[in-house]
């Protein structure tokens, strides 16, 4: 499903805050041999510096890009976009999803034949492949060292489609050098720091403890300072974002975010987390809390925008979600209203169904979602130039320009070569108007997390520890101290486990189409869950509603889906 998609809203706001997790991935070995790229972190200027040539307006090529995610368009004549165009000779007009689902938008583009030069089709990439409108990367990749460097050969192989060719590359979750991530980018049960502070920073390990705390806090503090009522818990169920209600059972059982199935490592077989005992317990708990009035009555019908608006008021005490899905949209707003000083910021909790279990909510490594990424379409008139641009965007100077901004304007460099921002710069970079007129991150183009090629700075400002700390509100700092945590990651206490190459399994199910029985089943299961999960939560008689739901669910033939997923898994592990 469209579970955890690190597609990033992330990047839209990357400048303001920090970025995704990732972990120590040494620059890929295949690349280390290449002379054009830095093989050791110390080699500063060697790779990724752009030639000094300056392109004139006549020489600049305009490309278009569509990204099947909501985003904000930047202004024409944006400062950094112009700067990049001058250096690289390419300017890209980005457009975003508005009001449709990604599949609808991509479907319409295919049907109309009106293709942009670059496209990131989200979870609908496979439709683009099926329609034969993408340019294969194979013959180009070796000419573009920066691009090639993004993944190891083994990882590149994961991107190969049925015909054995690579058509796109995911741009997220790639760590250069040392991992500097500070934020738990993935899913968790989130809770406002003021709730924890009120109860003297208790240890919360289970779902029951979590809801118990929310209940007690809401009973003691029913209103916000402005008189509006607090809402102890809400859930988003809209379209693909319904992972917020849907996939918690896998985590509660201690499994990582495979997103559509659980992989049992002992037998290397798949389990369906929708029907486990934990799933029943989890939904029964939600049902109980709903009937107590703890859960937002409108949870089942709210749109993403309404959900974000609600979170921005600070009225929601807790929810289950992924960081990138809400944080970049609400953190600036909370700050502007002074709600961060009241402790309305959220911290993640790594809950399990029983106390004392290990959890894997947090991914320490880079997660490779090979089901989506940036692609070049057959409509592009100058494919080589398009690849060159993708490649050059990873040059260190351009990368800094994209994410840090212009030196002297958006950041300063201290005597040790460390980048920093003044308070004014930070505020300015958080301002949407400034973001539109000045900053240009090309947020769905290739990019790095981790450490810059200079070995000192972070690729992304939000991962620069000094910047991260300077941005934290007082209650957050106190909370981190109380739990002995340095950052969000430490709050979760996830087990450090090695993930197989199959991880995450959702990157396989994302590519299922309705041409196969498994794909049809997958499609129908989602339909049924969209309707019935909120229904069972709202039921007056949980058990009978759950039984009806199970009947409907089993009628979708989930076994077809599981069988096909098992084939994918077997394929990867070479069984």
């Amino acid at each position, binding site marked *: 499903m469209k579970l955890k998609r690190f597609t990033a809203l992330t990047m839209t706001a990357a400048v303001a805050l920090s970025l995704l997790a990732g972990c120590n991935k040494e620059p890929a070995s295949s690349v280390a041999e290449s002379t054009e790229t830095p093989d050791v972190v110390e080699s500063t200027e060697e790779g990724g510096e752009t030639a000094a040539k300056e392109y004139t307006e006549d020489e600049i090529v305009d490309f278009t890009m569509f990204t099947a995610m909501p985003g904000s368009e930047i202004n024409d004549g944006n400062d950094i976009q112009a700067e990049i165009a001058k250096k690289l000779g390419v300017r890209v007009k980005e457009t975003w999803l508005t009001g449709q689902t990604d599949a609808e938008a991509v479907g319409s583009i295919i049907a109309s034949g009106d293709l942009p030069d670059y496209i990131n089709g989200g979870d609908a990439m496979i439709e683009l492949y099926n*329609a034969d409108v993408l340019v294969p990367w194979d013959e180009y990749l070796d000419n573009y060292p920066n691009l090639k460097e993004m993944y190891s050969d083994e990882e590149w192989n994961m991107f190969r489609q049925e015909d054995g060719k690579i058509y796109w590359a995911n741009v997220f979750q790639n760590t250069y050098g040392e991992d500097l991530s500070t934020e738990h980018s993935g899913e968790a049960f989130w809770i406002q720091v003021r709730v924890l502070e009120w109860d003297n920073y208790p240890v919360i390990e289970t779902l029951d403890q979590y809801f118990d705390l929310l209940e007690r806090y809401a009973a003691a503090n029913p209103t916000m300072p402005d008189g509006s009522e607090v809402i102890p818990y809400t859930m988003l169920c809209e379209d693909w974002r319904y992972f917020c209600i849907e996939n918690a059972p896998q985590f509660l059982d201690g499994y990582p975010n495979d997103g559509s199935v659980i992989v049992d490592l002992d037998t290397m077989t798949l389990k369906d987390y929708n029907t486990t005992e934990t799933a029943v317990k989890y939904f029964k708990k939600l049902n109980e809390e709903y009937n107590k009035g703890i859960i937002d009555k*409108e949870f089942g019908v709210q749109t993403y925008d309404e959900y974000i608006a609600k979170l921005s008021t600070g009225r929601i005490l807790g929810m289950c979600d992924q960081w990138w899905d809400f944080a970049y949209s609400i953190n600036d707003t909370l700050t502007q209203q002074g709600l961060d000083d009241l402790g309305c910021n959220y911290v993640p909790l790594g809950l399990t169904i029983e106390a004392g279990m290990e959890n894997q909510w947090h991914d320490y490594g880079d997660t490779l979602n090979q089901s989506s990424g940036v692609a070049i379409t057959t409509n592009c008139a100058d494919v080589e130039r398009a690849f060159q641009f993708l490649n050059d965007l990873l040059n260190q100077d351009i990368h800094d320009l994209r994410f840090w901004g212009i030196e002297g304007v958006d950041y300063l460099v201290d005597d040790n070569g460390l980048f920093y921002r003044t308070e004014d710069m930070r505020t300015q970079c958080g301002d949407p108007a400034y973001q539109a007129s000045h900053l240009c991150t090309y947020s769905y183009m290739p990019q790095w997390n981790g450490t810059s090629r200079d070995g000192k700075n972070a690729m992304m400002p939000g991962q620069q520890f000094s910047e991260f700390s300077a941005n934290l509100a007082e209650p957050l700092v106190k909370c981190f101290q109380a739990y002995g945590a340095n950052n969000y990651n430490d709050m979760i206490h996830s087990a450090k486990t090695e993930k197989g190459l199959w991880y995450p399994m959702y990157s396989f199910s994302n590519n299922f189409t309705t041409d196969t029985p498994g794909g049809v089943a997958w499609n129908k299961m989602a339909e049924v869950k969209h309707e019935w999960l909120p229904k069972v939560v709202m039921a007056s008689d949980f058990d009978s509603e759950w039984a009806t739901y199970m009947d409907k669910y089993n009628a979708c033939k989930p076994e077809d889906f599981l069988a096909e997923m098992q084939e994918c898994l077997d394929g990867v592990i070479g069984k």
Partner: protein
Amino acid sequence: MGADENLTEETENVESTEAGKRALSKTGQPVEDIDNLSRKEIRKRAKKNNRAEDVKVRLSKAELKRQATLLILSAIFVVYGIIFYYVPLLGWIMAFQNFKLKTGFFHSKFVWFAKFIRLFEDEEFLRVIRNTLGMGILNLVTTFVMAIVFAILLNEVRNKYCKKIVQTISYLPHFLSWIIVCGLLHDALSSTGIVNEVLIKLGIIDNYISFFSFPAYFWPIVAFANVWKETGWNAIIYLAAITSIDPSLYEAAAMDGAGRWQKIKHITLPGIRPTIMILLVMNIGNVLNAGFEVQYLLGNGLVQGVSRTIDIYVLNWGISEGDYSLGTAAGIFKSAVAIILILIANWVAKKSGEEHLF
């Protein structure tokens, strides 16, 4: 002006019902012969005339030349129709293929009726048919009745300015796009919206109702949205029909001691009956166009079982899932049902001696 009005009145009178005619003769106005002829006779005569013309006009060069302008003008419309209505129908071939963009129109495999079979085996499709028909009929009945009631009520308003203002305001929503109407509706019915607020303040409910969480409310909400948006606009045509009713009928009725209610019942309603019938026949063909935007914009996971229409189904399968064949098959089904519906409605209208399309 006078002559023109007379003309329309006369035609109206011809069309109007027995009641109207009785009233007319009572007033003792001079009526021309034609007014007393039954409709059947008129039609017979018309047919005779036609036949007479057929005999007269021979297809000759001279005749073609004489009608050249007319022929060219009509040819433009024929060509337009062929290009924009008939050529696209070639796309229906897709419904009988397993159409893939890669293989295209000419190389996709023919599967004949497999897609249709798949369609009718799909529980979801049967449900969207039910939803489409349900909402279509509900919308038809409510908007239709409301428009007539509204037109009659407005016609009874004596103050000219008041009438104009009400009419203008009432048809303005027609010009709003559905996205705006749905936005308004969504906000009005939300937890902090005006509806909940009023109900709570009046003490009718204790806690707000999440209207969009309950499948039972969905159809009525959609019907309400349609009524709100279209009533004023639909009423215009009835108001026009009402103005063409001979005022002397009302005077005569008043003399006979008829009250307002009786005048409405015996003069206004019969007067606009032909208009009502024609619009009804046309709208019945439209029942399957129960809407796309409203359901698409207001629907959510909880109510999807009652909110999805055939159009949404076509979008889901055709565009989102890329199964153009299935989408086309669903579209063909919809068109076929619409044609059947309109034929039935027309046939019923014809049988009962009412106005009909063909």
